[in-house]
């Protein structure tokens, strides 16, 4: 019987991790659909950024309540997962609390896991209340209906359930040890300490040892199966950030926020135009002709770079960006969070397309522009960088907006008319207004 349990456990592990590996592979494949961009420079600065922002949560605490609760849940989850290591070893070898030989250290560990589990539970309950009872505005924006809304709550329920099973497992285990049950009791006395779950003992008091074993085993199994399920839920959820926040902050832009990249393809053309020695009638060299002319800007996810695609998978849909966006605050359609969610949704769609067409993308008559993100949203942006600053994990929605504006202007000549006029003026007389270039110093003569 015990052996059967061990075998089932190993099968569950293999499936759980196997499926997860498959998802990671898909994730990496999709991110790599993006264009190349070099973000491997300055590794020291990048590591420091990751340590500060992802590990150190420095931007989370800009909003102190959410930031504090998030740190509790984050630290809790990371540390409690040390316990998973023991659960896995116990599960495979049929042992009971294999690390208990650590003695007092073990008691301290288990005790602190329990306290953390309780704090995580509490934190998650408060998160749920903020989202569903207090109804904080950013959680109820237009894009937060359907799956995004359910996803957010699913995660909270999950975490609550995992913590309850963890504590229930310990309570039953504690009781079994107290009753001296076979396999549970140890010569060293009670192993582990149970500062929280001891309060659950009255709930299971009076149960027979065999019933207690069923309770303990059920909680144990559901806890570990829950973790395996959660691991695989990530790919379909905004919760991917628990993994991707780290690469995302590592590969984030290090340059000043105001510095936008200079398009390479344009650089070559401008150089040619500015070069007095260039021969406009020269035959294009044969190799260049074979190349497809580069598309300017982005109309679909494949036109974005891989960091932008990584950004979209990392987004936790917290909406801090949107709540800081001047356009959104004044009732415009633009929401930087929606830009990220749309990018991810379209990227997923492209990924599924590739999977169903044997590794080849088949034109589906759709694109990120118009089918997901409208021009109205794109033109509402003031490029103020508030969204970039607000993001607790270094996502840059503005870079996607700019890339799509580039497509609209340079491929489709689809800028709003007033902007076309301003740009025409810049081209003709060097200023966005129709003043003569020769009048540029007139102010010096005026009183």
């Amino acid at each position, binding site marked *: 019987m015990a052996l059967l349990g061990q075998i089932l456990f190993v099968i569950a592990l293999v499936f759980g991790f196997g499926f997860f590996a498959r998802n990671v592979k898909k994730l990496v494949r999709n991110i790599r659909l993006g264009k190349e961009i070099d973000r491997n420079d300055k590794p020291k600065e990048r590591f420091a950024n990751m340590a500060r922002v992802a590990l150190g949560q420095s931007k989370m605490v800009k909003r102190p309540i959410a930031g504090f609760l998030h740190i509790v849940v984050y630290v809790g989850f990371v540390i409690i997962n040390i316990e998973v290591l023991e659960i896995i070893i116990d599960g495979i070898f049929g042992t009971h609390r294999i690390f208990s030989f650590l003695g007092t250290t073990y008691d301290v560990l288990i005790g602190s896991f329990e306290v953390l589990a309780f704090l995580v539970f509490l934190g998650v309950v408060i998160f749920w209340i903020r989202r569903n009872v207090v109804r904080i505005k950013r959680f109820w924006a237009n894009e937060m209906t359907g799956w995004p809304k359910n996803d957010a709550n699913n995660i909270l329920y999950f975490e609550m359930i995992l913590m309850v099973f963890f504590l229930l497992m310990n309570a039953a285990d504690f009781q079994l040890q107290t009753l001296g049950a076979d396999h549970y009791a140890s010569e060293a006395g009670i192993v582990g300490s149970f500062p929280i779950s001891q309060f659950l003992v009255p709930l299971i008091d009076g149960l027979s040892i065999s019933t207690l074993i069923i309770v303990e085993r059920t909680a144990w199994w559901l806890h570990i199966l829950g973790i395996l399920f959660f691991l695989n839920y990530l790919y379909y959820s905004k919760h991917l950030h628990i993994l991707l926040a780290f690469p995302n902050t590592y590969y984030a832009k290090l340059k*000043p926020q*105001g*510095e*936008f990249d*200079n*398009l390479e393809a*344009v*650089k070559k*053309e*401008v150089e040619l*135009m*500015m070069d007095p020695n260039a021969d406009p009638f020269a035959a294009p060299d044969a190799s260049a002709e074979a190349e497809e002319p580069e598309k300017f*800007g982005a109309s679909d996810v494949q036109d974005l770079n891989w960091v932008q695609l990584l950004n979209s998978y990392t987004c936790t849909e917290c909406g801090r960006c949107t709540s800081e966006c*001047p*356009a959104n*605050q*004044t*009732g*415009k*359609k*633009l929401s930087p969070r929606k830009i990220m969610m749309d990018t991810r949704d379209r990227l997923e769609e492209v990924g599924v397309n590739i999977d169903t067409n044997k590794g080849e993308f088949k034109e589906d008559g759709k694109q990120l522009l118009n089918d997901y993100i409208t021009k109205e949203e794109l*033109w*509402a*942006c*003031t*490029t*103020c*960088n*508030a969204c970039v*600053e607000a993001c607790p994990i270094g996502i840059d929605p503005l870079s996607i907006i*700019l890339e799509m*504006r*580039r*497509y609209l*202007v*340079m491929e489709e000549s689809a*800028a*709003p008319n*007033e*902007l076309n*006029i*301003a*740009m025409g003026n*810049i*081209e003709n007389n*060097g*200023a*966005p*207004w129709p003043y003569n*270039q*020769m*009048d*540029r*110093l*007139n*102010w*010096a*003569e*005026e*009183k």
Partner: protein
Amino acid sequence: MAEAIKVPTMAEYMAEGKKPEVLFWVGCAGSFDDRAKKITKAFVKILSNAGVDYAVLGTEEGCTGDPAKRAGNEFLFQMQAAQNIEVLNGYEIEKIVTACPHCFNTIKNEYPELGGNYKVMHHTQFLKSLLEEGKLKVEGGKFKGKRITFHDPCYLGRANNEYEAPRDLLRKLEVELVEMKNCKKKGLCCGAGGGQMFKEPEPGNKDVNVLRTEQAMETKPDMIAAGCPFCNTMMTDGVKSKNKEGEIEVMDVAEMIAQADEL
């Protein structure tokens, strides 16, 4: 503020075989916009009063390309950049000061990769350095004790992490500096960036400049200080929309210094 000041141009300097210490990049707004020209003149007065060896490009200056780039027209931006860099490099310019955060950001951050490498300063940074060198004396004067809130320009603040230079200058003016609920890193845009200055806003329930003006008015200021000609226009319009133009003045930090020093 009566007599016009002789503003030296790079061409004149060149003709004399000299090079100024610093180039004052005036920008389109500073050259053509009636409100912004006042900032330009105030700044020039401070420069000449402090004995700064400067010159302007005058008719050889052209838009940096900032609005074009941020609207998505990378071609036009790079054409403007190439022309400007050719002029600047032709004069062997090393140091540039500008009263426009958009010009500041573009020349400082986006020109180097295109061949234009200069030390670029925002006018508030430059004025602060003049102060530190003792070339400029700033005293409270007419602004002493006035309740003033500073509106952070996005392209000076968030874009380039400069929050203190303008505030240091205001402190020198002995004003009562009050901060809006959204300030510094969390400053709210005036609504002009990214080409918005030149177009109607998308449909919504309020204009961005009105929202920002409301935030400013919550601090009950006597004045709103700005550091960008576009913010200045937006905030001035915002104050007008609230019918407060008689009560709350919007002024550039440079204008305030010039007035305090009775230039």
